[in-house]
């Protein structure tokens, strides 16, 4: 049973990712986040949707430990990736080392943890096969298309077998076809590895297709203004995008987003 239950009747005690009354004020005085509270349970796929400048990325950075809150608390048992690689982060850009071949880029997290070479090689081969890059281990990043670079980036995130996957608009720069294919595969990887995913996006359709729950954010100051459940069981077939139920969910979410804009 790889698919997590969409709505657990009893809330588990400790969420894997949590913000409680978090403000983030930058030195210039800009309030990037205002009293943001959210919780993500183990196994959930949650999308964070909002216009640019609403602090979506700041939320991810706080949860990854790349930023500190001005007030409030960040609770995340898997917050920093320890030696067991509990949290992985996928940036908006592929963020690959141009001087390293694909396999060496993917191996980086394990090498930084000084894992034995044999273990690293096996893990890299396995994860490259899983993301469809088995033949590209010795390629240079400069030889790859944007979509393939993003696959490498995701392979690097998955290679440590993390519990939590934080993704910051990873597919925003890709064309629609590549993006949809990667969305389909992302759900497979999420299910296969029983990940907990928090996915930042500004695309309504992407949020609906991927997640069980969408947190809607508004800008100036950045805050969570709404929350919607997407009650479609996994696995979600690619064709689900063309059903009336999908369209209805998108319409609901768009309305919530507009409401957020009006409220802001």
């Amino acid at each position, binding site marked *: 049973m790889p698919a997590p239950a969409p709505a657990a009747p009893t809330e588990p005690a400790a969420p894997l990712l949590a913000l409680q009354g978090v403000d983030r004020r930058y030195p210039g005085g800009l309030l990037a986040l205002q009293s943001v509270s959210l919780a993500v349970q183990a196994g959930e796929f949650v999308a964070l949707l909002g216009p640019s400048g609403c602090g979506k990325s700041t939320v991810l950075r706080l949860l990854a430990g790349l930023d500190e809150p001005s007030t409030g608390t960040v609770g995340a048992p898997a917050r920093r990736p320890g030696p067991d690689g509990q949290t992985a982060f996928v940036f908006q850009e592929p963020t690959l080392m141009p*001087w390293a071949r694909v396999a060496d880029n993917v191996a*980086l997290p394990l090498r930084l943890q000084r894992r034995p070479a044999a273990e690293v090689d096996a893990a890299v081969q396995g994860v490259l096969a899983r993301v469809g890059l088995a033949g590209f281990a010795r390629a240079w990043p400069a030889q790859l298309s944007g979509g393939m670079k993003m696959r490498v980036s995701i392979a690097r995130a998955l290679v440590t077998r993390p519990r939590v996957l934080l993704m910051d608009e990873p597919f925003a720069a890709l064309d629609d076809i590549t993006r949809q294919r990667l969305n389909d595969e992302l759900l497979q990887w999420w299910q296969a590895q029983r990940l907990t995913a928090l996915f930042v996006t500004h695309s309504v359709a992407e949020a609906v297709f991927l997640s069980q729950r969408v947190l809607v954010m508004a800008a100036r100051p950045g805050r969570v203004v709404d929350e919607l459940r997407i009650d479609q069981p996994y696995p979600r077939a690619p064709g689900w995008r063309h059903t009336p139920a999908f369209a209805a969910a998108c319409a609901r979410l768009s309305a919530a987003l507009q409401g957020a804009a009006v409220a802001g």
Partner: protein
Amino acid sequence: MSGWRATLGRAALPVAVALAVLAGWELLVRAAGIPEFTLPAPSRVAQALAEHGASLAGSWWYTLKITFGALALACAGGVLIAALFALSPALERALFPLAVVLQVTPIVAVAPLILIYVDSTTAALLLCAWIVAFFPILSNTVIGLRATDPQLRELFRLYRATPWQRLALLRAPSALPYFLAGLKISGGLSLIGAVTAEMVAGAAGRETGLASRILEASFRTETPKMFAALVLLVATGVLIFAGFNALSRALLGPWHAAESSRPH
């Protein structure tokens, strides 16, 4: 499609131009009856080169030792100081102006002082050539060490890389193209520095370089020999540049945009 046939095709034009210049020079000298102590014909320079080949080779070897000795010290010093600057911005603020002072002081103007203070002529020549050669390596490496992709830096932070891992796996490879660009400049400069310092040091001494031979020949109005020494110097400079160009391409070729997308 043979690679070296293409190389030959590209080389044809500059070689043809060089041959035309030499032929014109030879014709001009012969037609106008210019005496060889004013302007020797290329054939006369070649003859002088053959005549004095053995003795010039010894001087050439001495100049080469100074040049590469200074360059090696410039690499070591430039990279070491750049690494210290990268570790401590305060140190950089304190010492960078001094490096600039060294760089902007004309070497001919300080060489006499250095020759007074430093007993060994060879050491004085090395110091002069080093002063000229080390700045491009220092300033380029400083920029290179700072030019790491901020997101890659965050990735290393996420995976808790040690300072040593960050230096070896992130900052050094990011700085390599910059360092190599500095090396290409410094290679030529260290030859210029060595020759300039030799000129100031004069023709005295048991071991002398090509510059001293040029001075010596000029006292005796042996113009063909002056040209012969000059030909050796120019050839050396060109070979140094070509060598570092090849090194740069070999090290960066597969991945670096500036090297992989250049026309030649």
